[in-house]
């Protein structure tokens, strides 16, 4: 235990003192997140988007306003009012009018709501003055933060950073230690391979968890991400994902002696993983084959679960399949690397 703690400390000091790597691990993901926030911030809408659910009378003055985009929902064919309202909540729609229940929905956190309410009420008034029969619509207030692309992409960026940091921080360093004889020197001490390797993993877990929290908190301070679920769930899924990625790093580190080969292999694994896990683009519209393949990528499970927690407010039970998948991957990778590990 004494040697475990000493090894964890040594490895962590090494990381903190390696200024280049240290700042790169913190700054790179933050720059990426801010970059996405700037480059892809929603252009301010010139028109409103309003949903018309059910049968809308054609003669309504409101519907004739050309500066408003109307999306018609046919409630008979599968679409539910709840899902339409959900889109108002996420600011994808500015208003939804339900002609069956005679109610309309506005998001109190959407700054266009007062304006669109006045336009709506004015045009109903005008219709009535013109003798048109208009039912009384009840206003329903809902509230919800808009889902910006950056809200959606932030788990992906942090996940990607975790992946690099775990693969290279564990894999690369162990391979270098094997090559330059540090591992051989440790082999000549009574320290067991298990103690040594688990100390490396523990140090990396702390480092990556701390960096991820820092990056999230640092960008959140400016961008104020949507957070519907609990931070605890997010912490649990993040921790499990880091353990899983470290175990992949260990697998690379268990035998290889060449840093170049290890680096090449790790790039070969991480880039398809990033593309295939829906880090930057949703896989919803991707080909079936890719979506199936993405299930075996640990990063997919992290990104999916953390998005569910942040955007949909999913609890532990809802993301349990992802958590189980991450745990299963970790066990497999750790066992495999323990089997093939060599000091030299």
């Amino acid at each position, binding site marked *: 235990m004494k*040697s475990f703690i*000493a090894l964890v400390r040594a490895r962590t000091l*090494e990381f903190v003192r*390696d200024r280049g790597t240290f700042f790169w691990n913190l700054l790179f993901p933050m720059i990426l997140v801010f970059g996405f926030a700037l480059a892809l911030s929603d252009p301010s809408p010139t028109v409103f988007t309003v949903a018309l659910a059910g049968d809308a009378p054609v003669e309504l003055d409101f519907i004739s306003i050309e500066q408003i985009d109307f999306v018609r929902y046919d409630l008979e064919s599968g679409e539910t009012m709840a899902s339409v309202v959900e889109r108002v909540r996420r600011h994808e729609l500015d208003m939804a009018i339900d002609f069956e229940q005679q109610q309309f929905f506005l998001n109190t956190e959407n700054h266009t709501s007062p304006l669109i309410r006045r336009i709506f009420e004015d045009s109903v008034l005008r219709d009535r003055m013109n003798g048109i029969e208009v039912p009384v619509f009840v206003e329903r207030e809902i509230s919800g933060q808009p889902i910006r692309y950056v809200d959606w992409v932030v788990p992906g960026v942090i996940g990607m950073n975790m992946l690099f940091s775990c693969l290279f921080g564990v894999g690369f360093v162990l391979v270098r230690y094997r090559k*330059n004889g*540090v591992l051989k*020197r440790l*082999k000549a*001490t009574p320290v067991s391979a298990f103690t040594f390797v688990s100390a490396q993993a523990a140090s990396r877990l702390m480092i990556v968890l701390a960096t991820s929290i820092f990056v999230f908190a640092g960008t959140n301070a400016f961008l104020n991400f949507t957070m519907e679920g609990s931070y605890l769930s997010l912490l649990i899924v993040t921790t499990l994902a880091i353990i899983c990625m470290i175990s992949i790093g260990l697998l690379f580190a268990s035998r290889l002696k060449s840093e170049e080969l290890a680096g090449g292999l790790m790039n070969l694994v991480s880039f398809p993983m990033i593309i295939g896990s829906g880090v930057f683009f949703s896989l919803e519209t991707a080909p079936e084959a890719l979506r199936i393949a993405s299930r075996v990528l640990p990063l997919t499970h992290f990104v999916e679960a953390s998005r569910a927690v942040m955007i949909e407010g999913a609890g532990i039970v809802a993301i349990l399949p992802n958590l189980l998948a991450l745990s299963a991957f970790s066990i497999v990778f750790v066992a495999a690397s323990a089997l093939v590990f060599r000091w030299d």
Partner: protein
Amino acid sequence: MQNILEVQDLVKHYRQVCAVDGISFSLAEGMCFGLLGPNGAGKTTTIEIMEGILKPDRGQILYRGRPIDSEFKKRAGIQFQNTSLPDHLTVSETIRLFQSFYPEPRPFNEIVEICSLSDILSRDNKKLSGGQRQRLLLAIAIVPQPDLVFLDEPTTGLDPQARRNFWDLIRRIQTEGATIVLTTHYMDEAHMLCDQIGIMDHGKMLEIDAPQAMLDRHFEGVLVRIPFDEPKRIDFPLPEGTVVRNDAIELTSTRLDETVRRLITLGLSLDGLSVHKPTLEDLFIKLTGNTLRA
């Protein structure tokens, strides 16, 4: 004295190369044993088998009469020929790290004092000079309070002053009772430090003995050397036992005045003639026909 380590009939191949070819010897407790030989002789392979780091193809090592086990690891201090130190750690952090690995480590201050590290305790491992680095590596080797210390070419690449300091260090550790095994290709170093030496070449042990005994056995008297531009062209008979080299002739002599008189009668010019007591260097040349291919 009891033998602390027995080396029995070691053989180790690397594919075609036979790095160690049937070596046996034993170490008495408290001695300093030197493995000598040129690069590629098999010194590192031999010492690493003795340390339990490499598995021999044949033969075995007995530590106090028993095959080496995990107990041995706690009692052996090891310095490899090429070792990097953990990155970004300071000297004192490195020592403390290694202290954590052993059940009963030597006290920190004692290590620092023995290896004269007090001035560089807070220096980064990467910023050490060659001599400082070797001292730190030795410090790590003595952390376990070892009764056996293995040093693989500890002074290679050091300047003469640093080498001398290192010798003092090794002697100090030996006086504390540790048995020392070191490899070197410096013959003077072996002569200075070692109670017994083994000369290796091409994986074989050529001779094992105390340095002076070995010299006495092979050389009688002193070595006389006369440089020549082209000694091969000498066409008159030289005294018996004369060795002709590329740039000189050499002979040993027990009675110097007589030898010189004889050389004069032969009509040889004695310009540049030198006389010295034979060294291990000369012995090595005699044994292998080669200079040290250092």
